[in-house]
């Protein structure tokens, strides 16, 4: 019989809980070098020896006195869910701080394992913890681990099983004689046997005890009960730390302080921030562009003709051929072309997160943010929004104040995500001579609307004093390529998954509607055209006067990139079908050579100081040409603005409803539509005059 064990990972923020779990359960949960990456409880499963281990990764918490929502999640789990084993993850370098939570966890007198993580970093700082002595003192397994290379994971798993099997509890925490005496008395007053220390302390703070124990204690210590307990805990944690610490000579100089002198310099720091953002965009474009052109070629000049050829050979009907070239190649294939861009931008964002720079941006920007009545810590969810709005909205859980939280949440959807970048890069290159300026302006425009929204809310619904903030800055760490690549792969996989499911389904529906009723000669008589024409009047003032575009916008509510796949499907019909002769072997050779050249060009682009890609006119494909005929520069710009601002993303609206309520999400959705329409209208009208 296999046994199942439920294990919770608890610990201070940014001590490497998720990284350890990723090693232990072979999961790919999101990690980063800053406090608050994990804001919900995440799970992992592992079959190990005769056991099924169910891991639960909890948000980081400094003390069992929760203030923010993520801290409440961790607290409630530890209090109520009764895991079989709690793994207390300690960042060895900061063991002195972390031992407070350890002390609080020990009070529960439940099976527990201590993982001393990041021992390598601690050694360099001259800190070593005597793990066997710790084990003797606490009577629980203490394992040294290293999340960087997975050292100690095996030992940790064995310790978990051993503890769960034996149901061994730690040695009881002992506080000062006086308080212990009173706790005993309180314990005696309760009839039903053994009560853990945590509950006893809680009883002591909440009511006075039958004989006025609380009052007596407060009188004795000359301070309130909360302070008494707190000081006792610190005394215990400190004593423990002194016992188990083996201080050595520090071997490494503190590089973080040196970097911070420059990076957080009041003036220099700002320019470094701008430079970092410039590089992020430059590399995202220039590195990915040659690869994107290659992918497009691979799909259009290799994959598509190859499959068409095969389909013709097996005698597929005209119907199937058109379905393939329009819904699959035109729709799904079109979106897949953008994978290199998605991968590169996520790679750059992962570097930002793994290095430790990201929370520093929040510190740098608080100067401006708080003038606008915004919380500095709110900067982190906003930055995450450039990666994807959905996790960014969840990340607002780290904000302690409900008002700050809603305020930041109302800004996030205006932060342009890679899905929008995909659309911008397509339209900006197609219609403008200096697409870099256009795309950059769109990003800034989104930020500006976000700030205005916040400013407006601060003046109306969310008035009040700006709350304080407290935030830990991590040390700089060299991002591990293996982990960065993993993060990118998770994102690319989810993009491809969307392409294969949601985007595919949308393309099929659009294609079917385009061919309904069956046997129509003219596309504009189809059901798809009928629907598009119905909403065109709303969009005409912003320059969209073509049912093919209006129709594309409807399924795009599921996810923005669907606007491209839908347009691909619709417009594919109009692409002149001049099939060149397709020969398999030369085509493969051409693709391989092309790939080599693309990689070379991508790498070379890293050494040019300006944004190269967006200066050059792209090669015209058939699809580009037909789409071009539907827009003017002014309407293309207004179309991009509309998609930037309107929350055309089901996932974002859904997560907003979950985190802030249905009403908030729906009102916001309406607001974003109106603001998107108004801005697009103004830009289109002005642009048409110019």
């Amino acid at each position, binding site marked *: 019989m296999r046994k199942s064990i439920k294990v919770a990972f608890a610990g201070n923020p940014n001590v490497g809980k998720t990284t350890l779990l990723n090693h232990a359960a072979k999961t790919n949960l999101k990690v980063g070098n800053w406090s608050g990456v994990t804001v919900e409880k995440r799970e992992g499963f592992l079959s190990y020896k005769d056991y099924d281990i169910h891991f639960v990764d909890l948000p980081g918490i400094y003390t069992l006195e929760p203030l923010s929502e993520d801290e409440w999640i961790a607290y409630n789990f530890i209090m109520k869910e009764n895991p079989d084993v709690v793994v207390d993850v300690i960042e060895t370098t900061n063991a002195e*701080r972390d031992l407070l939570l350890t002390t609080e966890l020990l009070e529960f007198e439940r099976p527990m394992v201590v993982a001393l993580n990041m021992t390598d970093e601690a050694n360099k700082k001259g800190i070593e913890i005597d793990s066997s002595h710790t084990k003797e003192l606490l009577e629980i397994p203490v394992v040294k681990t290293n999340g960087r290379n997975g050292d100690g994971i095996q030992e940790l798993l064995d310790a978990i099983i051993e503890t769960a099997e034996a149901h061994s509890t730690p040695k009881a925490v002992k506080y000062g004689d006086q308080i212990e005496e009173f706790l005993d008395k309180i314990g005696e007053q309760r009839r039903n046997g053994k009560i853990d220390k945590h509950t006893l302390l809680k009883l002591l703070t909440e009511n006075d005890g039958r004989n006025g124990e609380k009052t007596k204690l407060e009188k004795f210590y000359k301070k309130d009960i909360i302070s008494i307990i707190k000081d006792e805990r610190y005394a215990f944690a400190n004593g423990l730390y002194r016992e188990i610490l083996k201080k050595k000579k520090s071997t490494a100089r503190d590089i973080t302080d040196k970097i911070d002198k420059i990076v957080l310099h009041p003036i220099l720091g700002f320019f470094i921030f701008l430079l970092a953002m410039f590089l992020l965009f430059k590399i995202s474009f220039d590195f990915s562009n040659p690869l994107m052109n290659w992918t497009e070629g691979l799909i259009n000049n290799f994959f598509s003709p190859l499959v068409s050829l095969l389909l013709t050979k097996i005698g597929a009907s005209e119907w199937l051929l058109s379905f393939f070239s329009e819904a699959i190649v035109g729709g799904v294939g079109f979106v897949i072309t953008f994978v290199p861009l998605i991968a590169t931008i996520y790679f750059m964002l992962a570097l930002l997160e793994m290095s430790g720079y990201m929370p520093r941006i929040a510190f740098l920007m608080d100067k401006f943010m708080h003038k606008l009545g915004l919380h500095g810590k709110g900067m982190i969810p906003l930055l995450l929004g450039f990666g994807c709005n959905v996790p960014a909205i969840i990340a607002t859980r780290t904000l302690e104040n409900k008002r700050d939280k809603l305020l930041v949440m109302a800004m996030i959807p205006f932060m342009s995500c890679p899905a929008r970048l995909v659309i911008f890069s397509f339209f900006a290159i197609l219609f403008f001579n200096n697409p870099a300026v256009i795309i950059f302006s769109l990003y800034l425009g989104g930020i500006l609307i976000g700030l205005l929204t916040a400013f407006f809310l601060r003046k109306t619904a969310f008035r009040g004093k700006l709350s304080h903030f407290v935030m830990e800055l991590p040390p700089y760490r060299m991002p591990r390529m293996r982990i960065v690549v993993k993060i990118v792969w998770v994102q690319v996989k989810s993009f491809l998954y969307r392409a294969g499911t949601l985007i595919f389904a949308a393309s099929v529906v659009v294609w079917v509607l385009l061919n309904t009723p069956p046997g129509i000669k003219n596309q504009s008589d189809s059901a798809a055209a009928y629907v598009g024409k119905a909403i065109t009047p709303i969009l005409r003032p912003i320059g969209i006067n073509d049912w093919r575009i209006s129709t594309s916008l409807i399924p795009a509510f599921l996810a923005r990139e669907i606007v491209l796949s839908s347009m691909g499907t619709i417009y594919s019909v109009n692409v002149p079908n001049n099939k060149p002769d397709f020969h398999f072997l030369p085509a493969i050779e051409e693709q391989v050579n092309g790939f080599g050249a693309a990689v070379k060009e991508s790498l070379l682009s890293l050494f040019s100081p300006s944004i190269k890609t967006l200066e050059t006119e792209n090669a015209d494909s058939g699809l580009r040409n037909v789409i071009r005929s539907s827009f003017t520069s002014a309407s293309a710009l207004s179309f991009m603005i509309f998609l930037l601002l309107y929350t055309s993303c089901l996932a974002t609206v859904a997560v907003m409803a979950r985190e802030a309520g249905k009403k908030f999400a729906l009102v916001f959705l309406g607001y974003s539509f109106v603001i998107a329409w108004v801005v697009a209208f103004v830009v289109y009208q002005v642009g048409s005059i110019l």
Partner: protein
Amino acid sequence: MRYRFGHSRGRTPVETDTIKTYPSRTSLKELQVGEAAHIVDFFNPDEIARKIEAMGLRKGKKITVLQKLGRGILIKTNNSRIVITSDVAKNIEVK
């Protein structure tokens, strides 16, 4: 009246060998970049004070002010770096 401290300004720091110390009650807010001091007490022991204590800013700990930007103050204690805003810093008594 207990919580009125910490707003007093204008005292001059007394130089000792390594760190500057202050003659009477000073709040962390008043420290300049590069200055170090020890935490003495919290003027207002509320939940925020308890949280920053749990984060490592505890009584008796030596802290160094690494940077000040706007209302944010970056301080270092042991091996952790913590940003607090000045309204939190003014509640921390240092010596």
